[in-house]
């Protein structure tokens, strides 16, 4: 049972929320929609759920025209980024709600709700009020409510974004377990996120969305290794990939008075307007490197993010330890240039360290 969309467009105001989006989702797979905020992720999920009707395009599920079926008959489940539950019902009643709606026998409902509670680790909470739960527990309740339905399509709209760091890690781990437990055998799982790290960890098929347009589709590994354009490189890296305007001549990459020997995969590119992409983790501090000025230093967790500047070139370096820098300090850095990407002036990928573009 495949979910197929053709040229979905949705333009409620002067901006496209969806722009000619097409996809082919197969049952038993996990799809991750990666995109920044306002890129159309939620719109796409709502369109699949049936809460929005696209201006043009088609969706088919199991060979049937999905757009003709109202939301309440579609058998989809959705977890929102906000923790949406029914505040007037307790935990048990919340999870039982979709089953009661289907008029299922009471004893079966009880059994299923208990199973769902168990799988999200909330056994013993069934009589609690929703308001008495923490954010993470509330999100588990809404996850349980969407699991209990055995929906053919499970939509998760940035389900972890409103949780604090520790809970996020924990729930993400549980998600992975749930997804791999065979739940996914008959289900199409669609997970939207802004977080590239989450995308890589979930390791499903990735759809990169920006301004309502699909930029690239492929397995997580491929998106990471061969982003097909500058935009994808920015979206699929956190912090975004550094983009340096440089010139390559005589086997040297030159910018802002810095000369770096070009690696083999870049040496043949001599065109104008070339942009070099380098991940923030592929730059290191080094005594005999090139001098840059510190514009900002932020410490996040056990990592230090250095915003550096030289002339008009700004780059971000992430260092796996906590270091203290002052603004305007001078630091010396070295580029792991053999991991650099090159993009044409129009933003298309020119060369990648992982070799063949189509590979």
């Amino acid at each position, binding site marked *: 049972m495949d979910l197929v969309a053709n040229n979905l467009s949705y333009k409620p105001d002067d901006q496209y929320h969806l722009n000619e989006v097409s996809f082919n989702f197969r049952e038993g797979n996990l799809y991750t929609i990666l995109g920044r905020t306002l890129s159309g992720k939620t719109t796409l999920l709502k369109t699949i759920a049936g*809460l929005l009707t696209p201006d043009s395009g088609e969706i088919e599920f199991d060979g049937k025209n999905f757009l003709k079926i109202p939301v*309440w008959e579609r058998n989809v489940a959705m977890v929102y980024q906000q923790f*949406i539950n*029914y505040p*007037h019902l307790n935990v048990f009643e919340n999870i039982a709600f979709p089953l009661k709606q289907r008029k299922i026998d009471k004893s079966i409902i009880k059994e299923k709700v208990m199973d769902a509670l168990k799988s999200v680790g909330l056994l013993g909470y069934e009589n609690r009020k929703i308001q008495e739960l923490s954010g993470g527990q*509330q999100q588990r309740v809404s996850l349980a*409510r969407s699991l209990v339905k055995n929906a053919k399509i499970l939509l998760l709209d940035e389900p972890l974004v*409103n949780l604090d760091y520790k809970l996020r890690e924990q729930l993400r781990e549980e998600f992975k377990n749930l997804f791999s437990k065979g739940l996914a055998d008959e289900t199409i799982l669609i997970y939207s996120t802004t977080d590239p790290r989450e995308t890589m960890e979930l390791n499903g098929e990735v759809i990169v969305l920006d301004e309502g347009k699909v930029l690239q589709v492929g397995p997580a590994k491929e998106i990471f290794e061969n982003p097909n354009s500058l935009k994808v490189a920015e979206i699929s890296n956190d912090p975004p990939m550094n983009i340096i305007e440089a010139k390559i001549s005589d086997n040297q990459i030159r910018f802002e008075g810095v000369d770096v020997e070009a690696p083999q995969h870049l040496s043949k590119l001599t065109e104008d307007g070339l942009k070099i992409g380098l991940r923030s983790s592929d730059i290191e501090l080094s005594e005999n490197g090139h001098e840059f000025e510190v514009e900002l230093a932020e410490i996040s967790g056990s990592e230090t993010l250095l915003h550096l500047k030289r002339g008009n070139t700004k780059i971000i370096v992430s260092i796996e330890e906590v270091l203290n820098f002052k603004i305007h300090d001078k630091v010396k850095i070295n580029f792991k240039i053999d991991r650099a990407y090159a993009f044409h002036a129009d933003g298309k990928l020119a060369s990648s360290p992982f070799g063949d573009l189509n590979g």
Partner: protein
Amino acid sequence: MNKLYIFLKYFFIVVWTVFVVAPFLWALTTSFKDFQSVNGGVTYIPWVDFEPNLEGWKVLIKSPAKGGVDIIEPYFNSLFVTCTASLISIILGTLSAYALSRYTFKAGFVKNNDITFFFISQRIMPPIVLSIPFFLFLSSINLLDSLTGLIVVYIVLLMPIAVWIMVDFFNKVPREIDETALIDGCNPYQAFLKVVLPNSIPGLIVAGMFCIIFGWIDFFFAFILTFTEVQLLPVKIVALNSSVTPWWSLSASALVSVAPLIIVAFIVERYLSKGNLSGAIK
């Protein structure tokens, strides 16, 4: 410092309580007085200051033939008109408020906010402006001097209050709750009845209370749109006044007429503090 705070707190509570309760006590004692006691200077305590009697109360239930002003029928008329009009206003008002909050309407330059304002604008107009069209309207459909006519007019007056309060309330109920209900297999009507409405009880209570209060205390339209067949309580109470002001029966009728509102307030107060929308979205 702390003691001073407690002292001041209770001091103001006592002052305020006296301020609120005194008029009622005053009306209560006055209702048991006769002509002499009312005009014979300030007196407070029955049996000590004056000899209480039930004349003021008896007048209210005696038929006019025996020199009384039977307020029982107007009382139930008022109850009936107020409750019916409030109920219909709440039902219609809640439905329109939900539509205004959730769906987008557009007719030329008229949009949702304009429609909401149109409802409220009905209350902005001074009643005197509305009285003539209402009078002509009711007379043309033969509903002058009837309970049905009054109910129709009161719905026009009360529904804006319900719409106004409920639009604001529904706007605060996250749309995602409706959407989740739809995804969980409710059609739009079930989503409204099973999910949105149960979470809107505090709003319904506030709206209901305002409707009941404004319906119950209205004198103007009850006075203009009825003559002899039907009378409402406020009109009847005013009619008590004659060449000699009967302070005793006026006090008694004032107490009787304010009683339902006090009862409503006590019942409603318990629900109002229970607002349970938190936890829908965190």
